[in-house]
Every structure is written in structure tokens, then in C-alpha cells.
């Protein structure tokens, strides 16, 4: 059967890479970002569509009311600002897309529009913006608010925010720059117009002072999982990242987003959906299974770290819940609603500790040799319909990245499942090239 090619991305963090195992010399030096420069070069060589940089703006101290464990395990913090790192990654590569996360709840829209327009220039049309609304009160408290606006209001703000930045990106007509030494006109002022936005949440005059960027606007990435988030993504996004559970969950999610996109009058093929996976790869199946067992044992030992992660993004202090009981029904979050509902479903009636130790942040379990995993990914894409996978490892390591880029990717390429080159200059065009 002829394989249908799909796309690869990486869900990256600008946090400390693996520093406990001994296979790493980056524990202190990662903050100069050269680790990530090496990483993005590996990915471009392996045929990835993009590397994404997640972001958050806090040091969480929800778990047991202290930042001790958050920092002990170097989970969400410390972390670098993705904006200046993106230009470093771009300068080290030629084709791969680079997606940076920035929050609509905390960036002034003009600042964001200008930063990402500049990045689109500097990357020569290879930048993407991952839109998040943020999900933690601890972030809000770094930006002058007592608590986060509630979930649906955040999306309402995000809608207006996106309208403003799109307006700013459009404020220079494609032919505004004439650069004619004879008339002495660099830019034609009749083609650069203020946007005069006066809305409920923002007031921005414009025009942008950065000229129209190579892609016109960056590739828009989003991760909506709740109904409100799905609509937002279906309306605005060029690509989505998501973690629905299992093949049926993946198919349901993709079909649903495509249907919603059609309702917004869009061609659903304009939206590429990436499912998060975290393969465990061995030279033999036995080696892979042994790695999986070791990974689970590590989770058992570091049960507390898993709980800190949950606590940080849900802002629920899991230290006060009994780990030997299921999650009580009355526990809710104003944070990642889609994710939380997903967890409750996966946890079922199991105790918090049991379920958490088994949990991986992935749509499907992939354990085996590169060839075995390549076959599984092939079958999954055939069932789901497309469009790609993104890898997540927290923390990353040079060793794990190479297992993917030098082990799994060649197996995928031998099957004709991933790209062999980049047909276009710009990220969006490459995303849509098949």
C-alpha cells in the first residue's frame, strides 16, 4: 500500500535539558542556547517541518505552597525567553520552521506584532506564533492582575488580540515599499495605514512600524482542546498541536477541527494537525521494553515530580489530596480545561498515584525498534487521516534527540513517510506542500 507522507515537529522547551543521567554536559551551559542550536540542526537534517518553543511566565509554587520541588526538578522554570532565541535558531538553519509561543493575555499586541514580524524577516519567512492564553494565576500576578481572567473571557480577549495583530500585519500593503532612487521615495505613505482599533480590551492606533514580512503573517499555531479553544483554533490556526487519547480520540479531534474550520468558511486542508508522541526507542524490542520499564520505575520514584507538574499547570495543590484516592469530583481548574477533563477520563476510578505514574503526555504509546515504531506511525496516520506528529520529551537530551533524528527518521524516510527536502522558501508553503 502506498504510504501517505506526514509531517514532524518537536515540542521544545527552553528549559534545562537532561542533567541527572550523566549523559549530559549541558546542566549549566544550556542558557547560552547553543544546545538548542545543535538540536534544531539535527531536526533540519532529519526532515522536520518545525521546532516549537513552548513558553510560560512564572515560577510555580502551588505544590505544598513552595517552589522547592518545582525548582528541584527544574520543571517550568528556569526558562529562557523564546523571542531572541528564535533568531539564533534561524541563523543556524535554512529551511525548518521555528514556532515561538507568546501569550495573548500578557503581551501588548503591538509589541507582539512587531516582534514576530521582525522574526519573520530575520528567518526569511520561517517563523510561527503559537498562540496561548496562559493558564496560571501565578503568571497573572507577574503582570499586575490578582488572578487570571476566567477561561472563556481569556479566549474573548485572544480573539480581539488576534484581530489587532492581524490588522497591524496588514497595515503595510504588499507594494508599500517602492525604494525608487529617482523619485526619492522609499515607501509610499498611501499604502501604509493606521488601524484605529478601539475595542473592548485593546486600543491600538497603528500602523506597525515594521514593514510587511515575507509570509505576510507568521504561521499561526494553536492548541485548543476545550470547545471554545477548538473554535478559536479552527478559525485562526494554520497548525494545531494536540494530545487526544488513542487512535479514536485522534480521529475524533481531527475530524471535529476540520468540520469547525469548514463552518468558518475555511478549507480544512489549510490546517495541519500534529499529535504529541514520546516514542521509546531501542535497537531491539527487548531493549525498548526495558527502557520503558526503567522509565516507569523512575516515574514511581519521582511520583512527586509528576504531581508538581500537574499542580503547576492546573494550579491545584495536589499535595493536599490523598494520592491513594481518585481525584475528588469537586476539583476543578480555571487553567487547561481540555487537558484536565482528559486526565479525569484517563484516571477513571484509579488512585491519583497509580494513574499519574503510568501517565505519559502522548496521544499513543510507541515502544520498539525504529522500524516497528515507523510502522505504527504509518498505521495511525492512515486511520486518523493526517497530518503529523510532534515529539515531546521533558527534559530533552542529546541522546534522545539523536534516537529520533538518526534512528526513527531514517526508518520513516525509507518508507516514504516524511519529507526528503523543502520545496518552498516559506514555512507556511512547506506545511501545505503535501
Amino acid at each position: 500500500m502506498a504510504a501517505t507522507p506526514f509531517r514532524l515537529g518537536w515540542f521544545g522547551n527552553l528549559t534545562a535539558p537532561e542533567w541527572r543521567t550523566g549523559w549530559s554536559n549541558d546542566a549549566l551551559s544550556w542558557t547560552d542556547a547553543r544546545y538548542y542550536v545543535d538540536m534544531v540542526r539535527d531536526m533540519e537534517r532529519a526532515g522536520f517541518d518545525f521546532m516549537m518553543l513552548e513558553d510560560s511566565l512564572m515560577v510555580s509554587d502551588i505544590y505544598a505552597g513552595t517552589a522547592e520541588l518545582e525548582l528541584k526538578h527544574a520543571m517550568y522554570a528556569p526558562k529562557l525567553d523564546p523571542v531572541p532565541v528564535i533568531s539564533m535558531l534561524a541563523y543556524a538553519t535554512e529551511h525548518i520552521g521555528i514556532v515561538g509561543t507568546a501569550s495573548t493575555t500578557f503581551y501588548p499586541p503591538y509589541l507582539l506584532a512587531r516582534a514576530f514580524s521582525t522574526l519573520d524577516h530575520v528567518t526569511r519567512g520561517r517563523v510561527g506564533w503559537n498562540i496561548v492564553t496562559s493558564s496560571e494565576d501565578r503568571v497573572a500576578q507577574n503582570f499586575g492582575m490578582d488572578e487570571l481572567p476566567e477561561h472563556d473571557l481569556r479566549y474573548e480577549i485572544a480573539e480581539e488580540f488576534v484581530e489587532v495583530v492581524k490588522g497591524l500585519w496588514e497595515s503595510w500593503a504588499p507594494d508599500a515599499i517602492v525604494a525608487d532612487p529617482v523619485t526619492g521615495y522609499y515607501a509610499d505613505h498611501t499604502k501604509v495605514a493606521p488601524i484605529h482599533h478601539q475595542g473592548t480590551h485593546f486600543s491600538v492606533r497603528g500602523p506597525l512600524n515594521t514593514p510587511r514580512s515575507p509570509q505576510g503573517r507568521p504561521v499561526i499555531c494553536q492548541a485548543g482542546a476545550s470547545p471554545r479553544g477548538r473554535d478559536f483554533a479552527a478559525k485562526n490556526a494554520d497548525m494545531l498541536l494536540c494530545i487526544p487519547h488513542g487512535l479514536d480520540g485522534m480521529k475524533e479531534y481531527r475530524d471535529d477541527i476540520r468540520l469547525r474550520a469548514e463552518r468558518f468558511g475555511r478549507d480544512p486542508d489549510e490546517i495541519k494537525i500534529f499529535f504529541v508522541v514520546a516514542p521509546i526507542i531501542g535497537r531491539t524490542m527487548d531493549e525498548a521494553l526495558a527502557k520503558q520499564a526503567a522509565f516507569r520505575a523512575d516515574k514511581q520514584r519521582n511520583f512527586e515530580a509528576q504531581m508538581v507538574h500537574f499542580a503547576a499547570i492546573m494550579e491545584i495543590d495536589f499535595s493536599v489530596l490523598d494520592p491513594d484516592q481518585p481525584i475528588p469530583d469537586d476539583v476543578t481548574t480555571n487553567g487547561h480545561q481540555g487537558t484536565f477533563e482528559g486526565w479525569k477520563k484517563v484516571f477513571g476510578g484509579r488512585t491519583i498515584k497509580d494513574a499519574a505514574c503510568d501517565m505519559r503526555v502522548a496521544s499513543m504509546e510507541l515502544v520498539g525498534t525504529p522500524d516497528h515504531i515507523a510502522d505504527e506511525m504509518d498505521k495511525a496516520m492512515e486511520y486518523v487521516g493526517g497530518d503529523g506528529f510532534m515529539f515531546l520529551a521533558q527534559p530533552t537530551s542529546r541522546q534522545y534527540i539523536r534516537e529520533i533524528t538518526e534512528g526513527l527518521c531514517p526508518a520513516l524516510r525509507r518508507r516514504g513517510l516524511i519529507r526528503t527536502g523543502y520545496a518552498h522558501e516559506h514555512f507556511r508553503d512547506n506545511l501545505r506542500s503535501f
Partner: protein
Amino acid sequence: MFRLGWFLGNGFGMQPWYGEWAGRSMTEWTQPDLYVDLTTSLERAGFDLLFIEDTSMVEDTYGGSAETTLKYGLMAPKNDPVPLVPLLAAATEHIGIAVTMSTIQYPPYLAARSMVTLDHLTGGRAGVNVVTSVTHRVAQNFGFDKHLDHAERYAMAEEWMDVVSALWESWDPDARWALVRRARPPVPSGPSPALRSPEAEP
């Protein structure tokens, strides 16, 4: 003995784009290459620093139109200088690189984080030129009807600087966690992060 710095007067913006020595500025100024060349030349010559100006507006006071501004490329168009800094640093080893940030454009947490990141990426060679912005047109891009008066701008900048400095000190040199005083940025608070009218109180 004294020191030398270079004031990159039009920031990461358009440089002279016509005439004998314009090179490819006309089409290539949005690329970092010209500034990379400049910085390596300055380092070779023994400069202490490169200083990058910045503004965020298309000015239209003169004749009530942006025509003159855009005809000559005066202050606009211009790119965001922050992403330029690590590229200049990667091409050099010693020279300091200072970038301009405005207290009315940057929420202090974003500014503090951005500058700390630049200091990491440059291996300790980043500097910041703190400005309060001068025109209504900038203020109007950031949620104000018109710019704050001079004294108020500076009062805001003082608090902004206090907050940013405290955030920089919030990690001990030996990375033990230290509590910062609860820092409120000098922007009106409310359900939205938008900077609203200057009359509203934080």
C-alpha cells in the same frame, strides 16, 4: 585612555538606501547581515559597545501626513532590535551590545525576562537603554489616548526600573530562591492586560 561606542541611530531600521555606498540596504536592511558586519568591524577596532536605538511608530506630525517620514524612511520602517542582539553576539567575542527598551511598551516582567535571556545568550555582554518614549503616536500604539506628561513618565519609569531590578535579583547568584516583594507593574490593572487610558490608576 577613554572608551568608544557606536550609536546605531536608526536602530534595526533602514540605513541610507540610495547613493554610491548604499550597497544592498534598499532590499536587505531587514536582514541582520549589515549589522553583523558593523559589530565585527567595531570589535576589531576596539569599541566598548554598540548602542541600538529603537522606536515603535510611524510619525505623521510633519504636514499632518506620514508621507515625508515614509518617503525618506525616517524612524520607520524599523524592526524589533531584541532578536538582532544574539546574532551580533554570536559573530563577536568581546564587544558589549546595548538595546533600547521603552517603559511604556514593555510590561516589566517581559522586559526583565528578555534582558536576562539576552545576557545569557551573549555570555554577559548585553546592556539595556531604558527610555520612556517621547511621542503620542507611540503611546497610541500601546493603549493610551496620548502620552503621559514628562514628570508622570519618569515616575512610572522609576517604578518600572525598581520592579525590573528586583526581578533580576530574585535569583540569588547561587540560585537559591529568594522572595521578591509583590511587584505591581505601573500599568492599570483590570480584566485585560491592555494599557488603557493614562488616567486610570494601577
